C-alpha cells in the first residue's frame, strides 16, 4: 500500500480538506442535541417562544453549514479518489508495457487484467470511502460519548459499557463470517465451473450421454453451496437483533441512571433527552464503520496486489544501438546459445549454433517441447539468453534499442490474435501509414486476399475482439499479412500455418519467396513438407541440435529428421508413385 502513496501527490490538498470538512459536518451534527436541550430546559420550561424560534434558526443554520461542509467534503474525496486511481491505472499500464516476456509469463495475463480493472476499481471506492468516513464515524461515536460526559459523568458511564459491547458484537460477527464468506465464494466457484464445463464440453458430454450424471454432480455442488450459505446466514442473522437489544437496553439503563441524577437535582429532564439522542446516534455510525472496515481491508489487499505488480522490474535492460547493423554480416547468428527459463529446472535450449545468411530460408523442426519457439523468440529478444550471444545483422541483440531491433523482424506467433477494429486497422499494426495497395499486396502474399475481397467492406470489414468472426485459418493468414505489411528484413513463421491445408501452406511459401527483396525466412513447423526446400534445416530434440543441413543431407545424416520425415511422407511418397 505504501508504495502507492506517491500517486496521491498533487491531491494532498483534497486528501486533507475532504476528511476535515467531513469532521466539521459531524461536529455540527453533534451540536444538535445540545440545542434541543436548550429548547426543552430554557424555552419550554420558561415558556419563552422567542428563544425557541432563535434556537430553531440556529438548528437550520447548523444544517446549512453541515450541508455545505459535507458537499465540499464529497467533492474533494471524489476528486482525490478518482485522480489517484486514474494515476495508478496509468502507471500500471505503462509499467506492464515495459515488462519482458519472462515477467509476463510469471505474472500471467489474466492476473494483469484483473489488477488493472477490478482491483483498481475496488481501490478507488476504498479510498473514496476512507476519505469520507474514516474520520467521521469514530469521531461521531467518541464525540457522542464525550458530549455525554460533559452532560453528566455518572450517566455517561453507560456509554463506556455500551460502545465496547457493541463493537465486540459487530466486529465479532464480522470476524466470524468473513472466512465463511470466502468458503461461500469457493462453493459458488464450483457451481460456476460445473456450469461452464457443461457448456464448453457439451459435445463430449452428450456424445457420452452423461447429462443425467452431470445434473447430479451439479446438484451436489449446488447443495453444498446452500449448506454453507445457510450456516453463514444463521450467524449474520444475529447482527441486527443483538445490536438492537444492546442499544435499547443501554437506553433503558441511561434513563434509569438519568432519573436518579434528575431526582437529586444534578441534571435536567432535557439533558436526559440529549443523552438518549446521543445513544441513538452511535449505532448507525458503528455499522457504517464496520462496512468501512470491510471495504478498506479489501482495498488494502487490492493495493498490495497492485504494488506487487508495480514492483516487478523488467529483467532485461534496453540497449542503445539504433543503427541498421553491419551490412555484410549474417542476418541472424546464434553462437553457443543456451537459455533456461525462470523457475525452470532445465535448459530449454543448449549450445545452439546457427548462421543465417541474408535472404535465406531456415527451417526449424522438432517434436512438441523441443525448443523451436524458444529459439525464434530469442531473435527479437523476447527473452534473454543465459549463455552465448544472438546477433542480428552482426550486432548483439542486447545492444539494440527494442524498437530498432523489433522493427526489422516480423513474427507470426502460433496463436494468431487479431484486434478489435477493421481489417485495415489490424494490418496497420505493422506499419502505421500503410496504404491500401501495400495492404492488399501483403494480403495477397498471405493467401488472404480472396476471402478479404468477399467480406462486406473489404478492408473496412469489422474485426471482433480476438478476431472471433474469422475462422482459425483465416486468422492465421491475416496475422501473416499483418507481419508482411511491415516489410520486415526477417520473417518468422512460428508454426503459423498449422491451420492451413497443404495447398494453401505451399502457395504461401511460394509467394513469400517470390517477393522482391524477400525477407530472411524462419519456418517453424512439425511438417517436413513445409521446409523441404529450405537452405538449411535445424533439427531440435529436447533443446539441443540434433542435426543441421539441407533436406537431402539430413535424410542421410540425421536419424531424428529421417524418422519425422518417414512418419509423414514414406507411405504417401510410395502411394503417389504407385498411382503415378
Amino acid at each position, binding site marked *: 500500500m505504501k508504495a502507492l502513496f506517491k500517486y496521491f501527490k498533487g491531491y494532498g490538498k483534497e486528501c486533507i480538506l475532504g476528511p476535515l470538512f467531513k469532521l466539521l459536518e459531524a461536529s455540527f451534527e453533534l451540536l444538535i442535541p445540545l440545542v434541543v436541550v436548550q429548547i426543552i430546559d430554557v424555552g419550554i420550561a420558561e415558556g419563552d417562544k422567542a428563544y425557541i424560534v432563535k434556537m430553531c434558526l440556529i438548528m437550520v443554520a447548523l444544517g446549512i453549514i453541515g450541508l455545505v461542509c459535507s458537499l465540499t467534503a464529497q467533492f474533494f474525496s471524489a476528486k482525490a479518489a478518482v485522480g489517484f486511481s486514474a494515476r495508478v491505472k496509468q502507471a500500471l499500464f505503462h509499467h506492464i508495457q515495459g515488462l519482458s516476456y519472462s515477467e509476463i509469463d510469471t505474472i500471467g495475463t489474466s492476473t494483469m487484467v484483473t489488477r488493472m480493472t477490478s482491483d483498481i476499481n475496488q481501490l478507488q471506492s476504498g479510498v473514496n470511502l476512507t476519505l469520507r468516513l474514516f474520520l467521521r464515524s469514530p469521531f461521531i461515536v467518541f464525540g457522542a460519548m464525550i458530549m455525554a460526559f460533559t452532560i453528566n459523568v455518572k450517566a455517561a458511564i453507560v456509554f463506556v459499557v455500551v460502545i465496547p459491547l457493541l463493537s465486540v458484537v459487530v466486529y465479532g460477527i464480522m470476524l466470524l463470517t468473513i472466512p465463511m464468506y470466502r468458503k461461500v465464494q469457493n462453493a459458488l466457484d464450483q457451481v460456476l465451473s460445473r456450469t461452464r464445463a457443461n457448456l464448453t464440453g457439451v459435445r463430449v458430454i452428450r456424445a457420452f450421454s452423461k447429462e443425467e450424471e452431470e445434473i447430479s454432480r451439479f446438484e451436489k455442488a449446488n447443495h453444498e453451496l446452500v449448506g454453507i450459505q445457510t450456516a453463514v446466514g444463521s450467524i449474520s442473522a444475529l447482527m441486527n437483533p443483538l445490536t438492537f437489544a444492546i442499544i435499547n437496553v443501554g437506553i433503558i439503563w441511561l434513563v434509569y441512571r438519568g432519573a436518579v441524577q434528575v431526582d437529586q437535582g444534578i441534571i435536567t429532564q432535557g439533558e436526559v433527552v440529549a443523552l438518549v439522542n446521543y445513544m441513538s446516534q452511535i449505532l448507525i455510525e458503528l455499522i457504517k464503520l464496520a462496512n468501512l472496515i470491510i471495504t478498506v481491508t479489501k482495498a488494502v489487499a487490492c493495493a498490495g496486489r497492485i504494488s506487487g505488480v508495480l514492483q516487478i522490474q523488467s529483467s532485461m535492460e534496453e540497449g542503445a544501438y539504433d543503427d541498421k547493423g553491419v551490412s555484410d554480416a549474417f542476418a541472424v547468428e546464434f553462437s553457443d546459445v543456451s537459455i533456461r527459463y525462470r523457475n525452470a529446472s532445465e535448459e530449454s535450449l543448449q549450445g545452439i549454433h546457427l548462421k543465417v545468411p541474408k535472404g535465406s530460408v531456415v527451417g526449424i523442426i522438432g517434436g512438441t517441447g523441443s525448443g523451436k519457439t524458444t529459439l525464434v523468440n530469442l531473435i527479437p529478444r523476447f527473452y534473454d539468453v543465459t549463455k552465448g550471444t544472438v546477433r542480428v545483422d552482426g550486432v548483439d541483440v542486447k545492444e539494440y534499442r527494442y524498437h530498432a531491433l523489433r522493427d526489422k523482424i516480423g513474427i507470426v506467433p502460433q496463436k494468431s490474435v487479431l484486434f478489435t477494429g477493421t481489417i485495415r486497422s489490424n494490418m496497420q499494426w505493422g506499419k502505421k501509414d500503410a496504404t491500401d495497395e501495400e495492404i492488399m499486396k501483403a494480403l495477397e502474399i498471405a493467401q488472404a486476399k480472396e476471402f478479404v475481397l468477399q467480406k462486406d467492406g473489404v478492408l473496412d470489414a469489422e474485426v471482433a475482439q480476438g478476431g472471433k468472426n474469422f475462422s482459425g485459418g483465416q486468422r492465421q493468414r491475416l496475422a501473416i499479412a499483418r507481419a508482411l505489411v511491415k516489410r520486415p528484413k526477417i520473417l518468422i513463421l512460428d508454426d503459423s500455418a498449422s491451420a492451413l491445408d497443404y495447398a494453401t501452406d505451399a502457395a504461401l511459401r511460394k509467394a513469400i519467396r517470390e517477393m522482391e527483396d524477400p525477407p530472411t525466412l524462419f519456418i517453424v513447423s512439425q511438417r517436413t513438407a513445409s521446409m523441404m526446400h529450405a537452405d538449411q534445416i535445424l533439427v531440435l530434440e529436447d533443446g539441443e541440435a540434433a542435426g543441421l543441413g539441407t533436406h537431402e543431407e539430413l535424410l542421410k545424416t540425421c536419424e531424428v529428421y529421417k524418422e519425422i520425415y518417414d*512418419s509423414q511422407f514414406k507411405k504417401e511418397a510410395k502411394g503417389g508413385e504407385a498411382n503415378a
Partner: protein
Amino acid sequence: MRNRDIIKKVLHYISRYWGLLILSLVMAAVSALLALVLPILTGDAIDMIVAKGQVDFDGLSKIINRMLTVIGVTIIAQYIMNTCNNKITFDVVRDIRREAFDKIERLPLSYIDAHPAGEIVSRVIADVDQFADGLLMGFTQLFTGVLTIIGTLVLMFRINVQVTLIVVLITPVSLFVAAFIAKKTYDMFRLQSETRAEQTTLIDEMIGNEKVLQAFSYEDDAMEQFDEINGRLQKASLRAIFFSSTTNPSTRFVNSLVYTGVALAGSMTVIATGGALTVGQLSCLLSYANQYTKPFNEISGVITELQNAIACAGRIFELIEEDPQIPEAENAVTLHDVRGSLKLEHVGFSYVPERSLIEDLNLTVKPGQRIAIVGPTGCGKTTLINLLMRFYDVNEGSIAVDGTDIREMTRKSLRTSFGMVLQETWLMNGTIRDNIIMGKPDATEEEIVAAAKASHAHSFIRRLEHGYDTVIGENEGTLSQGQKQLICITRVMLALPPMLILDEATSSIDTRTEIKIQNAFARMMQGRTSFIVAHRLSTIREADIILVMRDGHIVEQGNHESLLEQDGFYAKLYNSQFET
C-alpha cells in the same frame, strides 16, 4: 417478457415456501411495530423524571419492565424473520439454478453454439444471485419500510396532529431531492460505465496480448490510446461519483429541517397547551421524525434494486423457458448390436435459413467402411458430424443407422454407438481416470491401462506424480494439447463403440507419436464404420469413400483412384502436397 409475467413467475417459485413467507411477514410486522413502540415507552419514561424530587420511580420501573419485554420479543421476531428470509432466498436460488442447469443439459446445440458460454454462465451465477438479493431482501425491506412508515404516522398522529402534519408535509421533499439527483446523475453514470467498458475492452485486448504488442513495437500506441480513455474516464467518474454522492447530504439536510420543524412546532404546542403535550412526548416525536425519513430513503433504493432484480429474473427465465431440443419419441428405439450401416437420403441442412449448406446429400455406408471427409480449412466438415451425432437435426431428408431413422431412436443409444475424438479436446474436471472411463464406467484397471498403452498415453500418464489419479483442473494447465488429445483417444479406445468419428484426432500430436497411434487406430477401425476428417492424405487414401467438401458443399464423392481420375478439386488438393 413483460414485468408482470416475470413477477408472476417469481411468485410461483416463492409460493413453494409460502409457510415460511407468511411467518417471515408476520415477524417483520411484529418487529417493525414493536420497534416503533419503544420510543413511546422511552418518552413515557422521560415523563416520569420531571425535575429534582419529582421522579416517579415506581412508574419508571413499570415502564422499564415493559420496555424490556418489547425488546425481548422484538429480537426474537427479528431473528426468526432473518432466518426465514435466508432460508427462502437460498432455497429459491438453489431451485432456480437446478432448473437452469437441467435446461442447459437439454438445450439444442444450436442455442449453445450461438451463445457464448460466459453469457449463459453469468445468467446462472450472477443474475440468479442478484435476483435473490435484490428481490427477496428488497421485498422484506419494502414491506417493513411501508409498515414502519404507516406505523410511525399512526403513532405520531395519536400524539399530536399538528406536529405530525409538519412531518408529513416536509418529508416528501427529501424524496424529491433524491429522485431529482438520481435522474440528473443517470446520464453521468451511463457515460461512466460506457467509458469504463471501453477501457476494460482495451485492457483486455492489449494486456491480454501483451506479447503481440511488444512484437509489433505497439506499446507507445497502446499507451496513447489508454491515456486518452483514462483521461475521459477520470472526468466522467468524478462527475458521476460526486454528483451522486450529493444525495446523502441533501436528504440529510431536508431531514434536519423536518427535525427542526418538529422541535419548533412541538415545543410551541407544549407551551401553548400547558403540558397537554409532554416533554417526553416531544422527545418521542423527535425520535420518530428522525426514524420516519429513513425508510423513505431506503425504499427509493429498494425500488431500483427491485427493478434490477426483475431484469435479472427476466434473463434467467428466458434461459429456463428456452425451447429444449426436440424430445424423444415415446416409442423411441434403443439400438442394440449396431452393425454400422448408414444411409443418408436427400439430406439438406443449413445453420441459418438464408445460407443453405448441405443440399441433397446421398450416401450409403456399409458396415465397416471408412469414410474420409476432406476439404480446405473452414469448408464445413464438422457440420456432417453435427448431423450424424444428431447435435443438429437435418432440415430435409433423413439419416438412418441400421435402417432406423436416427430421429426414431433414443439419443443415448445413437450417440453411444459412436466414438468421437475431436480436434478441440475437452476434458472434464476430475481425474485422468474419470476422463478415460467416461464411455465405460465399469472398466477394470487392466482395461484402462491396455487402452492407454494402445493410445501411447500410458507412458506420460505413468510419469505424472499421481498417475491415473492426477486431477485435471478447469484450464487443464498441466497437460499439453497433445497429451490431452491422447487422453481423448484413450477414452474411445476403451469404450470401443461400433462406429467412430475422428475429427482431426491427431492434429496436436507430433508426427512420430502419431505414426505409432495410427497403427492402433487402424486396428480399432477394423470392422467399424469410421468417419475421418484429416489433412493427412495417407489416412485419406485408404478410405472406402472420400467426401470432398468445399464451401459447405460436397463437391466430389468416390474413392482415391476414381477421384484422381476425375482430376477435379481432390486431385488438385492431393497434388499440392508434393508441389514445390
